[in-house]
């Protein structure tokens, strides 16, 4: 009889789930809500600020071309190269800024930790697919653009199980 009760319990558990809410959400129509504006780092305190590690954002008015991000990346992904930019900034004598190859980047965020000038942060934008590998290389001017991302669903726990809801 132990066998029978085992089967009946399994059947009960399985059929119970027919009325639970489905857990998946429709991705392109709905997107996940993230905590902040992306991972940031406060060099004074030496700790980061929690957030999603998506693609980077580069503040041209703060970047000094010190290459610390490229040095940090050297042993990890070698995704950052310093390139010459046409702009003239007082703090950036050499006029070089990071250019990031997202075909190589592993989104560890250690370059953000390395930047002492609040110039390189990460954003919520993680949708970076493209048809060619060359499109994955983001130049400093592309990195300066603040991405638009509006996710609205997050995990909710209700009487009919956990689900993704607004």
């Amino acid at each position, binding site marked *: 009889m132990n066998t029978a009760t085992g089967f009946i319990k*399994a*059947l009960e*558990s*399985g*059929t119970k*789930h*027919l009325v*639970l*809410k*489905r*857990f*998946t959400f*429709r991705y392109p129509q709905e997107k996940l809500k993230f905590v902040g504006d992306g991972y940031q780092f406060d060099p004074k305190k030496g700790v980061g600020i929690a957030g999603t590690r998506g693609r980077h954002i580069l503040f041209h008015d703060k970047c000094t071309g010190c290459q610390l991000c490229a040095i940090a990346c050297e042993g990890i992904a070698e995704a950052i190269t310093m390139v010459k930019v046409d702009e003239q900034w007082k703090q950036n004598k050499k006029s070089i800024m990071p250019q990031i190859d997202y075909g190589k980047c592993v989104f560890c965020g250690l370059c953000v930790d390395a930047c002492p000038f609040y110039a390189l942060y990460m954003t919520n934008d993680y949708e970076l*697919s493209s*048809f060619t590998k060359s499109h994955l290389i983001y130049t400093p001017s592309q990195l300066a653009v603040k991405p638009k991302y509006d996710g609205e669903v997050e995990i909710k726990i209700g009487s009919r*199980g956990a689900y993704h809801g607004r």
Partner: protein
Amino acid sequence: MASLTPDFRFGNFVASIVWVLFVVLALVTVLILPIIFFTLFYIPLPVVDGQVLTPYLFFSMMVDPSRTLPILQFFMHTTLFKAAVFPGFVFAALIAAVTIFVERKLLAKMQLRVGPLYAGKVEGIFQLLADGLKLLTKEIIVPSGADKPIFWLAPIMFVATAAAVVALIPVAPGWVVADVDVGLIAVFAILGFFPLIALLFSWASNSKYPFIGGLRALHQMIAFEIPFFLSALPVVLLSSSLNLTEIARSQYMIWNIFLLPINAFVFFISSLAELERIPFDLPEAESEIVAGWLTETTGMIYGLIQLGSYLKLYALAGLFVILFLGGWYGPQIFPPELIPGAHESNLPLLQMLALDGVYNAITVNSVFWFLIKTIFIIFLMLVIRGINPRIRIDILLHTGWYKLIVLTFINLFVVLMLIYGGIIGPEGVISIR
């Protein structure tokens, strides 16, 4: 937006479609129509309503509503229609398709997933069509060293055998493709071909995993064939007939499942094993032997075998309904006429809408109840797939040989005692007729 390739031109796309249409039209006018007319000229044409059904008459009848229904009625009672369309292949294939879709959605629901979603806008109802098209366009890879004739023949044989089982299942009084007197035995005889096909195919594919899978299929089949047949025997004793229509008729008052619950249980388990569905899907156990005897299947070969196995699923669920759930009997819920007074009125359009002459309340009711019961059984089989892991081969053989056979024998003797004791049976206390 990002789904189009950079070199996509809409004009080229339209042009290619127009070109294909033109080629098809040209071929039809030049080749296919003459061939059709030549053949029609030489074959004898049937007589409907006292007129020879020439193609011209046929087309004219299709536009004249008053003449359409007799033609439909005539075609519905031809053997070809029965075998190919209604209780036969197309009907069963449709149910198989619906079963596949429902199975995917139901399992998805049970597993808190979505299941098919995108094909066909509404919850992915055209997913199966998309899958079928995909399988059709896929390359068929024949392994080197394979026995090519058998490798090509086996999937077709599989579908044909499954369709042969379907042909024996009645769905309503008189609606059966082959109404043979040894119906039940014929069903078991045809079912006995499946492991042979599996073994042949696995041997022909010249690979190790299919070979093991084929052997497993054979073992499983032999272990479960005997309880399968023995569990159906008491039903034959009770209704004193092997004809499936007769067996269904004998349950007019009491369904067999109330008299023989253990038999029904054994039959259900054995049919799961016969179908190689989840607790018993050893021949296709993917974590042990890749995909078992289906390892070397590709493209439409795989599609045909899937179709065959779902046809078999429908056939066995139908057989369960015929044997234990009283066949097509159920309360009459359909009206005698679809639109009351349509037969008396002389309005052809109204008669056509009411399907006068074609519509038969009893038949429709029978088919309805048969379908409801069959779907319930299929649903049970699907749910069992969701909650169980795979069984091991030695436990399976042990279950088949030691438990189920003994159970069916005991049950058989109990039923015989009850019949001779005059409790159940044709002249028993609990009368069936």
